């Protein structure tokens, strides 16, 4: 109850807090001194780049070129490449700081601190072509472009998607960012969320959402990847084992009061004769294995 009140009160409190500081926090336009040349000056020599920038969202920035490259008057006057900032020669951190000078306080970067991309020094420009050249542009939009871009580094994941049972990423029916947030997320593997904090898998698999009368604990504790390999598998239903009974029995192997294994998962009753095909696929009977509205044993 307390949490619920806190949840409902938090936005209100935040609004009040921000209302008091709104004036103080309002962004002020940056002032450009004589050391800045202006983008039109850059255009004289860098026509193609200028056109790319003007066709991209970065055209909204005043002195678009110098917002990232720094003051350019000296460079424009001398044509000396050393007198302007060249992002190619910066470290990933320095490149990111250049971009984050404008983009840090944006929703897309909410999970940045947990992002493995950030920790592994994958800079913004590894994925974003800032000058917006080429068919993909600043931000890839077409499904095939998004998947191709991710695949340039994650080649082993591309290979996983070649297995017969898979999410339809090679067909471009889905993209990597449908499930992952490349900017970072508080969930494992930078996964997307459904609603506020539910697993992103539920964006499409809403029938597995619940809450159920009887939850299957692994689904809630450790998520879908406990039993499924989401990228692709040689096993039907993207299971992590070739046979359903092995998926189940590897956990359901504890004898209560006897075993020393401090894990959940009790042994099924003795009627389960694995020699009979009736018991070799557990989900024939335990069909509501993701959670049941009716039955404690997930039978209906």
């Amino acid at each position: 109850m307390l949490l619920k009140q806190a949840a409902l009160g938090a936005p209100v409190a935040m609004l009040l807090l921000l209302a008091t500081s709104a004036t103080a926090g309002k962004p002020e336009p940056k002032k450009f001194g004589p050391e800045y040349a202006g983008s039109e000056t850059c255009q004289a020599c860098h026509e193609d780049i200028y056109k790319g920038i003007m066709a991209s969202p970065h055209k909204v920035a005043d002195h678009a070129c110098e917002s990232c490259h720094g003051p350019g008057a000296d460079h424009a006057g001398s044509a000396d490449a050393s007198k302007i900032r060249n992002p190619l020669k910066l470290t990933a951190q320095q490149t990111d700081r250049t971009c984050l000078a404008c983009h840090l306080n944006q929703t897309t970067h909410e999970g940045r601190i947990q992002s493995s991309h950030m920790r592994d020094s994958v800079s913004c420009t590894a994925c974003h072509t800032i000058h917006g050249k080429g068919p993909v542009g600043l931000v890839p939009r077409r499904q095939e472009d998004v998947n191709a871009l991710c695949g340039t580094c994650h080649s082993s994941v591309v290979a996983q998607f070649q297995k017969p049972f898979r999410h339809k990423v090679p067909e471009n029916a889905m993209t990597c960012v449908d499930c992952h947030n490349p900017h970072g997320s508080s969930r494992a593997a930078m996964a997307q969320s459904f609603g506020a904090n539910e697993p992103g898998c539920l964006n499409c698999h809403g029938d597995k959402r619940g809450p159920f009368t009887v939850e299957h604990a692994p689904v809630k504790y450790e998520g879908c990847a406990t039993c499924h390999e989401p990228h692709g598998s040689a096993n039907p239903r993207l299971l992590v084992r070739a046979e359903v009974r092995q998926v189940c029995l590897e956990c359901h192997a504890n004898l209560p009061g006897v075993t020393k294994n401090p894990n959940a998962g009790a042994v099924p009753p003795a009627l389960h004769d694995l020699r009979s095909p009736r018991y070799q696929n557990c989900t024939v009977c335990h069909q509501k294995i993701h959670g049941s509205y009716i039955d404690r044993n997930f039978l209906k």
Partner: protein
Amino acid sequence: MKFVPAFLVLLPFSLVAQDKAAAPAPAAAQSAPAAEPSPAPSAENWLAGSVDIGERWLSGVGGSLPTYRSVVNLGSGPKLLGADFTILDGKRRYFDRIRVRALDWGDQPYESLHVLAEKQDSYEFNADFRRVSYFNNLPSFADPLLTRGTALDEQSFDTRRTIGSFSLEVLPNSFISPFIGYDRDSSRGTGVTVFRTDADEFAVPATLRDSTDLFRGGFHMTGRLWHVTVEEGGNHYKTDQNTFTSTSLAPNPGNVTTPILGQTQGITSLLQDYGVRGSGNYTKVILTVTPTTWADVYGHFLFSEPQTSINYKQYDNGNFVLLSQALFYTSEQYLVSAAAKLPHTSGDLGWEIRPMRHVRVLQSWMTDRLHNASNAVQSGTFVAGTLGQSLAANYNSTDSTVIADAGKSIIVRGGYRYVWGDAFDTVLPAEGIPAVNHEFISRKVGMGGATWRPMHRFSLTGEFEIASSSGAYFRTSLFNYKKARMMARYQILDTLNLSADYSVLSNKDPNLSSAYKFLTHRESVSLSWNPAKRRYSFQGTYEHCGYHSQISFLVPSLLTPDLSVYNEYCHAVTALIHAAYGKLEVSGGGAVSLVSGSRPTAYYQPTARVSYAVTKNIGFFGEWRYYGLNEAFFLFESFRAQLLTAGLRYTR
């Protein structure tokens, strides 16, 4: 939603009509590769893009048609294979640009449409609409009758899922940017499921229908040094699975044909009706602050509270037996009324501090707490009572990392993560098996990594994690694990890129003696060659993987230990060669996945494509694809099929 296919059918005609009145397409559009038309219009051209329409022919599927439909499911007929175009409003009255992308329409297994409309500093509207056919009927999957020669997957589905997501943000880049959104996810179709009694299971037809409507709204507030997003949402959920069977002929005998005490079981009629309704609200607050030039702070607060109410009805007639009482009966009624609520709170707080120019310190803390409470009242011919579950999981993690530039070309990092939490699961009333589980998780993880970038063209990244646990929820959970990964990228020439990736994970739970071993590793190498002028190009990837898992388990009927061993060794190759000769373009390649081990499988997907620019705006293309699946242990599930597609591309 019927307007969507109609719109897409009309689209190519409207584009042609528009072209007659419009200025000629720029010369660059002619020479651009047909496979990658630029959808960005020039200043003079208010409409640019392409539309692909064509006809597809599917050869007769050799082998298992149900498996083909479960894995590929592409069919014959006229198709709108793709559309990608942008409309510009030169006067910028109502919009700056509208970008439309559509893919694979016309009774395809996956159809998508995306519309982006925006006007700078005024609004941004996104619409994403998809329809996915989910057909799954694998003869080997859930078929107790297979040994009798009957192929019937008793957990099969033929459904179509529709997913729509619509969002509108107004005044983007302003101090306050309100936004609203609506998402709908729905599915309907049919399937085969099982009605289970005490001593038999009966495959029965089922109708499946569920939907989730999600409404959300909020605002972004962006200051010079901070940003806040507040979002409130609510959803409505329902599922209406229904099974119905009735026969005046011989009863359905189910999976058990052996008489019990001289009587054969069978079902003559059944009605099962799941009436599930759910709703829930959520709150999301996101905060980023840059209090000084050397620090950034990030925080989230997330809360959701989905709840459901259930009314279940079941009426079945036939000849059944209740084994515990040796009681035969011919009809049964079973009613359940239940409710469940799952409040879920998450929060995290973190900061990045830059105490020195070349050093960053990252610290974060997060908690995730969910508590499910449910109760049900059951009444039926043989059951009367209550059922309830209380499930709680509290997961916490704190993480500290230091990243330092150890030189001009090396970045190193090291850190420590501590994960702790507990989970509690009680089901009442107790029923033979343990009704209470209370587990703890406690894990200490050391992390490290480095990125070496001696020159712009080359980078090598390595990272590792070593973890030690004193508790885990499940026997297969991560316990004492070691994880490492290396990625290298080398731009050998301006047109030639080489990348390689290696990852390994080993895990062991000492509480399970030496029987538990888990090891997986992947190695891949990728080559991309794009010579100048794009006359030729090549992209290829090779991956090898190994996966070994070994864990003891108890055979339920004997309580004797046995070993579950899973092995998987895979080789996967993807390649695509592209060549252009004037107006003619040819490409070929595909993918091969070879898996050996516990479930040997070979999956071949070669493809070839040819396109020819007939005129400045019209091009012809033809495509051939082959799909071949071979499963060594389940030969009856193998298939092979060829698809031929021919069509026209209109570009402007």
